[in-house]
């Protein structure tokens, strides 16, 4: 992408990336040497295990729990599971028996181990075949139907709680101009240590992410894509305690984008930092394999911290997200790094500051499909003023060449979704996109001007902060409240009991495939 030009200090840019890589290194090492219950369950999902017990607890949980109890997860659960499978017709029957307490799990040795390895590799390989087939089908459909004619892509949210009501809403939204549909998850799903099963009709301010809901919505949007002549992309959330499993489900059901931030779960959901980093690396590897664009969550920092004072924390987080993503195999064109229009409109020159911050991101990550997030913090309930603010947000997005634009709603946090407000918001986007289509071409802030100065200033602050993070260690920085004010120690938070250091003999066929290890 050729964005507008902004003279950034090239040495600072190099330094920023070097520091980000250094800060990420110990955390990547942690991720490589640990596993989690969700990584192990994702492996079972790739091997084709679906369904849930009568209480709605998925069979992957029942089976993984039984193995964890008997032999632990530090060796990887694939060997004990596929060893036990020799006495059962399929994984589901094994899970039933394990849930009833009728299976003795053990780590097989020698020939028995070889046989179990072979069974596991074949089963998990079939899951990757499904992911590869989904990716190929996406390419084919995009080729046949076509991409949206304009950038930024217009990203719209649906969230009724009922997948069967979401579907017509999503189809209507696509017909009204949306290029990307995000189905917001039920509030609190990120804190569930299992992925609900099947089509769901009740949610809390959102709809549960389930494999079946993914399948239903993707099929409906395929239909609509053909009608509107644009491939409509589908987005969900690979975040929370089940990040790796949801990533696997998304890959197999051809979701196109997934929200997946390196630190969001830690900071905003109080999920244990180590759990998050281990789960995140696996899920990003799956996304890389599936050709899924990740969306990072830098916008969230600005909802809790001041958007001017904390502007550089967004840049730091983008650089860290980029580093973690690259390490997990994601190329630039799959990095939907986030940032947001959240400066208090009462601040003088707020729009110039927004332009500076947005251009900084555009210039730092020229090939990434940046996700531009609308104002939420300063949406007061005055819908008329909110509509104006959204107009300025849209204008900044067009002027600075953003790639994915989340449509701002003037009723943010009051009523979502509200049909006529969505229509007015889309009208706002369409007006700005049409009126200012090529404006980025004409927008070259002078090298000695306010915008260039501010962008370089924020970059400088980001480099200083990265330096401190490298000195302290990223986990300590998170514990000290460096990002988004919240303090999250490495030994606190939810989900730590589902983390284990990998044993010497750890084996996971999914991890081997994703790491490119030849057996």
């Amino acid at each position, binding site marked *: 992408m050729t964005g507008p030009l902004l003279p950034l200090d090239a040495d600072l840019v190099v330094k920023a990336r070097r520091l980000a890589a250094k800060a990420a290194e110990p955390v990547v090492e942690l991720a490589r040497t640990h596993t989690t219950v969700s990584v192990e369950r994702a492996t079972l999902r790739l091997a084709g295990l679906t369904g849930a017990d009568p209480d709605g607890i998925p069979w992957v949980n029942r089976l993984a729990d039984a193995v964890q109890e008997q032999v632990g997860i530090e060796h990887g659960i694939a060997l004990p599971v596929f060893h036990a499978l020799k006495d059962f017709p399929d994984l589901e029957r094994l899970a039933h028996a394990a849930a009833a307490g009728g299976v003795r799990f053990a780590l097989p040795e020698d020939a028995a181990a070889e046989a179990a390895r072979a069974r596991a590799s074949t089963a998990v390989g079939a899951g990757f075949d499904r992911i590869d087939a989904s990716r190929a089908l996406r390419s084919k459909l995009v080729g046949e139907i076509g991409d949206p004619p304009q950038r930024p892509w217009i990203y719209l949210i649906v969230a009724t*709680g009922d997948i069967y009501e979401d579907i017509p809403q999503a189809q*209507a939204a696509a*017909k*009204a101009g949306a290029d990307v549909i995000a189905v917001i998850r039920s*509030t*609190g799903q990120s*804190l569930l240590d299992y992925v609900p099963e099947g089509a769901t009709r009740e949610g*809390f*301010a959102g709809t549960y992410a389930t494999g079946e809901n993914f399948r239903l919505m993707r099929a409906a949007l395929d239909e609509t894509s053909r009608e509107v002549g644009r491939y409509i992309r589908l987005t969900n959330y690979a975040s929370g305690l089940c990040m790796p499993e949801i990533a696997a489900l998304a890959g197999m059901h051809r979701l196109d984008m997934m929200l997946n931030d390196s630190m969001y779960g830690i900071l*905003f*959901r*109080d999920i244990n930092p180590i759990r998050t980093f281990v789960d995140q690396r696996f899920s990003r590897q799956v996304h890389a394999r599936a050709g899924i664009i990740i969306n990072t969550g830098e916008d*969230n920092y600005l*909802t*809790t911290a*001041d958007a001017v004072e904390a502007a550089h924390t967004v840049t730091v987080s983008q650089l860290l997200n980029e580093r973690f993503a690259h390490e997990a195999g994601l190329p630039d064109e799959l990095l939907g790094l986030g940032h947001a229009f959240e400066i208090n409109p009462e601040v003088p020159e707020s729009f110039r500051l927004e332009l500076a911050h947005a251009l900084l991101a555009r210039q730092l990550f020229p090939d990434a499909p940046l996700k531009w997030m609308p104002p939420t*913090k300063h949406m007061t*309930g005055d819908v008329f003023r909110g509509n104006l603010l959204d107009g300025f947000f849209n204008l900044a997005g067009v002027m600075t060449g953003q790639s994915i634009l989340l449509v701002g709603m003037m009723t943010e*946090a*009051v*009523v*979502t979704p509200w*049909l*006529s407000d969505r*229509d007015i918001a889309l009208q706002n986007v369409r007006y700005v996109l049409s009126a200012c289509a090529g404006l980025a071409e004409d927008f070259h802030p002078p090298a000695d001007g306010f915008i260039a100065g501010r962008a370089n200033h924020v970059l400088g602050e980001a480099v200083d902060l990265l330096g401190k993070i490298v000195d302290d260690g990223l986990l300590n920085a998170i514990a000290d409240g460096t990002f988004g*004010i*919240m*303090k999250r120690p490495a030994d606190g938070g939810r989900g730590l009991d589902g983390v284990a250091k990998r044993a010497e003999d750890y084996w996971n066929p999914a991890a081997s495939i994703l790491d490119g290890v030849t057996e």
Partner: protein
Amino acid sequence: MSRIVRPYGDTTGDGMVQMSFTLPVPHDKRAEGAALQLAAKMGLDGAMLVHAKPIGENYTFFVVYGATTHLVNLDEVQVVERDYPHLSPKEVNDAVRGKLGRKLTVVGACIGTDAHTVGIDAILNIKGVAGEKGLEYYRELRVVNLGAQVAVPDLVNRAVDEGADAVLVSQVVTQKDAHLHNTREMSAAFREALPPNRRPLLVVGGPRFDESAAAELGVDRIFSRGTMPSDVASYLVHRLVFAKEEAA
């Protein structure tokens, strides 16, 4: 002076209101007639339909102006007026130090799945809101901010461990009345866990709360939009320092 009022459009007493809504019907003459009929039933006299626009195939959006036939008597309006004196940070500190003789402990959190800490942070963080410093700035208040998405049982345990005099809970997300459910759950948990004389003062805040619903939700006080840290601090001192002094 008359205490009876009507809405104001451009002339005193004209009663004019502006209203927008969507009907689930395709845009045609009948839809516009239906919009005007609805306006009439809502008490708008001579309603003008100034804008009608299809949303998709099966919905139509309308903007209507009209004179309402309803009146409001200001004397009959019931609101929760401030029933305690407003104090400066210094007055709050002096009162706590002089009359309580120890620091007053405040535990704050966003409960349930609400991740929007903007409200609780505005009240508690030293940074405060609109130029007014938050409760952390008050020397005689000990503030424990648990942050976002605190489970109710965790909040109760922390409140007990910290010896909280007051618990402040902020709720921003209101979809499907989440703020009301969460608040009821929270107050019930405190009632179950502690006898009345050991229960901390329960205060909730958020932009869409009805300030008169405190009893119904089982809390001591509700603060709605526009609340400043000093309002909360003044209330805490009023209830925890002065009221106890009177009782003693």
